[in-house]
């Protein structure tokens, strides 16, 4: 798995709805033995912004995150997951998928059956959101003054 692929996988899993991820995981029908190396641990991260939108960084608040690191018993691959929120089940599942996807035998299946469909769901949701919001765009028109 390249760095780009792994970033994509992690981003998609982090943004996925827990129920949808669970559903796709069930359909995958893989149940690897794994051990938890670290966590699951819930904590805080400082969320940063840019002063003025594009200037230097500043802290403007905190958010909960949950992280976990797992190792697959058979292959020894290590998987990480860090998500906003406190859903330890979802984070664990994501870490297992991250570890599995490093294995050439599973990688394609995971991307085809989990990552790509989740990405598509997200895209459809975002498009719907954008279209609904776009309907609230103001169309200005100028009234003729009638004096000409």
């Amino acid at each position, binding site marked *: 798995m390249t*760095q780009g692929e*792994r*970033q994509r996988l*992690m*981003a998609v899993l*982090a*943004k996925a709805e827990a129920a949808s991820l669970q559903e796709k995981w069930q359909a995958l029908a893989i149940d690897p033995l794994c051990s938890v190396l670290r966590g699951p*641990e*819930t*904590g*805080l*991260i*400082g*969320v*940063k*912004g*840019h*002063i*003025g*939108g*594009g*200037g*230097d*960084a*500043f*802290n*403007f*608040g*905190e*958010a*909960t*995150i949950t*992280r976990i*690191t797992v190792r697959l018993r058979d292959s020894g691959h*290590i998987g*990480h997951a*860090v*998500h*906003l*929120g*406190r859903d330890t089940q979802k984070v664990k599942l994501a870490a297992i998928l991250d570890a599995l996807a490093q294995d050439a035998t599973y990688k394609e299946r995971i991307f085809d059956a989990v990552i790509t469909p989740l990405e598509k769901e997200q895209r459809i949701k*975002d*498009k*719907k*959101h*954008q*279209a*609904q*919001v*776009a*309907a*609230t*765009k*103001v169309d*200005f028109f100028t009234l003729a003054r009638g004096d000409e």
Partner: protein
Amino acid sequence: MYVAVKGGERAIANAHKLLAERRRGKRSVAALGLEQIVEQLSLAVDRVMNEGSLYDRHLAALAIKQARGDLIEAIFLLRAYRTTLPKLGYSTPVKTENMLIERRISATYKDLPGGQILGPTFDYTHRLLDPALAGEEAVFSLEEGPISPNNFVRVSDILAQEGLIEEDGRLNGAKPNDITKEPLDFPMGRDTRLQALARGDEGFLLALGYSTQRGYARTHPFAGEIRIGEVEVEYFIPELGYVVIIGRIQITECQMVNQFSGSAKVPPQFTRGYGLVFGQSERKAMSVALCDRALRANELGEDIVAPAQDEEFVIAHSDNVQATGFVEHLKLPHYVDFQSELDLVRTMRRDFEKAKDAVRSTACGLHEKQEKQKTGEVSSER
């Protein structure tokens, strides 16, 4: 003398049971679920997340439920909870230019790239109570519009092209401060101030922002741009050596464009106030931006004449958890303190009465003397 007093345990335990009962209300009414609060009281949730300084919708909803809807109490609960969690680092700065827009308006440009997107706003509603909301709402389908390619150019960038506005804030190489780790120290950098303002009480900051409009430190603000929407949060994973996206949060950003500064060397240009807060919190973001600008008085060489420009006054009183703690601590037993005050006032009263008696007797003496003098005068006249 310090007197330890015990007792009240039973009363306290029963008071808390009574609180739980009153919070639940009539059992014939269904209990409120957290999902209902998250979905249907989302702006209350946003306020609690902001002033509790913790982005977690479900925790904020739980706090609101537990606090019986008292938002400052809910904010207190959230702040207390966050102290139990370890700090696991920082996100990379969120990129508001890549926001998935929910609302975006500008009061300075009518036709700007991306357009004026009203989104779910209270603006232009008639503020008439809607009896229909008392029951189940009918489901209606939303109209959908053509999606413009994501070109929501920032208004500050439009002005910056002509050099008519100061650039984004710089810290001159300083590391951004974190008020959750370092105690507040005055004077403070703009980064620290923006963090403190983001968790500041909305009502307090609103009033201060309003005061600047009414002439207490006029800054001539325009709402250059307000945008609400979701941004991706990125986090560096040391084991991997690169950043990954760990989810999305909703935020509100306000760019105020204010009147000019300039000098012999720098040509006149617009100045700016900035507000960045969690959730859909437009009024809060605007108030933060107004206060941010007013508090830059020193930096911009303006006279400090009004409360909104006084950094220590604004920041030290903006945190409603601190404020409520100090105000509400007055309810705690002060029996011994008060006993000494009581003794003191009694002593002062005694002294006062004594002094009054003395005055009265002197006054009487004087009176007598005058009487005598009068009679004397009279007699002498005779």
